């Protein structure tokens, strides 16, 4: 099982690869694209500058270093959709960066998938989590379009992932493992994520009012309010590593474009430790203990089942 980590600049590359990443992914918005569409019209699913590689020269250096280290680099072109008028610009951008050695594009939009396959034959195209593959037949739909790898949604259980993977031999699948657990389904979410304070609409402390029906239980209100009380950027699925391996997951993916370098590196290192431990055949208890310990090392606190990627594993291994 590989580790796929986010990268935003050249200074992070060696540290991330040293920490255990074998694949890196990132985003880049050209000056031409920015002038035309602004950052709110980003070419990828990040709408703030710190989550973008700053220049084509920087991107080129990142790719060269990644390849020199025998690793791979994937570029995100995963805006939820593009307009007809954007496709020619998009293909120009894709062709130019493909020439820099990008190993695959991570894409959502049906039109772009088709255009890339037609106009840049041989290009590897991965489906972004925005593709929202929640079942085996949906994976089959995208596989027929030539998608070789898919990032599964955060909201699937490992059993559900396993079913999709087994039903689609020949396709590779990524599962999120740490950072950035969304309260909502990213592939279906139309909230904007570009405020200056980097606080997204899904994590704001809302005032809640009942406008129809009886008063909901305290559990319901707390469940909704809970997202403003936890730090979703500290989400974790470390204790599920062995189960993900058994399910046939190709790579575990870290969220965190635009995040601090030291967090990316520490988290990548923690994930590597768990990947290695999961190879040894360690039992549930040892896996759970190690995951808890690594989490405390990274975030300085105990993990929280609310922002657990795989609560079904957490509960079982914690004996809850």
């Amino acid at each position, binding site marked *: 099982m590989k580790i796929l980590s986010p990268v935003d600049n050249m200074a992070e590359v060696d540290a991330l690869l040293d920490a255990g990443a074998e694949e890196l992914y990132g985003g880049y918005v050209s000056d031409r694209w920015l002038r035309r569409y602004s950052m709110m019209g980003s070419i990828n699913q990040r709408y703030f500058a710190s989550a973008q590689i700053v220049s084509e020269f920087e991107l080129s250096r990142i790719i060269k270093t990644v390849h020199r280290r025998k690793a791979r680099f994937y570029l995100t072109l995963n805006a939820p959709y*593009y307009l007809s008028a954007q496709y020619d610009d998009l293909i120009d951008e894709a062709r130019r960066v493909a020439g820099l050695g990008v190993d695959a594009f991570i894409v959502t939009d049906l039109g772009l998938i088709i255009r890339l396959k037609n106009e840049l034959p041989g290009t590897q195209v991965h489906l972004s989590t925005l593709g929202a593959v929640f079942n085996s037949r949906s994976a089959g739909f995208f596989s027929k379009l030539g998608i070789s790898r898919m990032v599964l949604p955060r909201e699937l259980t490992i059993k559900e992932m396993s079913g999709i993977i087994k039903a689609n031999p020949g396709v590779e699948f990524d599962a999120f493992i740490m950072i950035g657990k969304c309260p909502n389904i990213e592939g279906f979410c139309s*909230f904007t994520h570009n405020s200056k304070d980097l606080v997204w609409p899904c994590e704001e402390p809302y005032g809640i009012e009942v406008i129809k029906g009886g008063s909901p239980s305290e559990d319901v209100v707390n469940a909704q309010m809970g997202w403003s009380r936890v730090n979703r950027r500290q989400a974790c699925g470390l204790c599920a590593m062995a189960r993900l391996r058994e399910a046939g997951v190709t790579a575990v993916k870290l969220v965190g474009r635009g995040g601090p370098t030291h967090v990316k590196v520490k988290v990548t290192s923690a994930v590597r430790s768990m990947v290695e431990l999961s190879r040894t055949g360690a039992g549930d208890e040892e896996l759970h203990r190690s995951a808890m310990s690594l989490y405390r090392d990274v975030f300085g606190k105990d993990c929280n089942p609310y922002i657990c990627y795989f609560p079904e594993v957490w509960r079982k291994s914690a004996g809850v």
Partner: protein
Amino acid sequence: MEHALYITSLSGLKGKTGGYTRLYFGAEFCQWRLPGPAMLRKALGLAGDAGLKFTLMTPWVTDAGLRKVDALLSVLADAGASGAEVVVNDYGVLASVKGICPSVTPVLGRLLVKQKCCPRIPAMFEDITEAGREIYLRTGVEGPDAAGLLKKWGVRRVELDNPVQGVRAELKAARLKGSIYLPYAYVTTTRHCPASFDGEGWQAFTGCKIKGCLKTVLALHTPSHGARILMRGNTQFVENEVLPEGLADMGIDRVVRMEDVP
């Protein structure tokens, strides 16, 4: 202009069919809210009695949900109702429609059209270039490649929201027809459904028995939004009653009226 009535419970049908020619029924956002085959047969019967054509709403689904949808599609195939449609919000369901009931017309649902309906958008417009604003006014299915692929799967109609910043679709060039939904524009949905929270976890992951969504609607307020968010079960909406001008020019020939937050 065709007018359709969208209900999620058959009790919402009584005395409300006047002026409509089509009935939307089913579940758009949660597989646990899908009707069973018997309920679907009843809905088909009621629609037929009222002289309404029928559209089945389906949500995104896991493999378990896909089996439920397949059973409903078999009912539709057996019923042979003239003009029947299925709104699909999952490409796996689209494949099911073609396989199980090819005579029923698939319609691309709001979750797959992916319009942007965040209530923060209007306040951000001044920071976006003219070309960038177009992204927030248009839809992602107008390109010839995507539209061509959808047509191969039998899709000729797409379901549109009416976001607060407005809509400027160009469906005619893509040879698609559009429906526009009033008054609740879809914003976001989750599997961490608060109405399925049982104190330990979200039943929406395992099979929801609580179904708090059936009775309670919440309003979420925050100063950063220009409009309140309405939440039923796992899904959030903003309300917008004002129809944009020039619907026919955009290729929109159907208005879908929701009597309640779906």
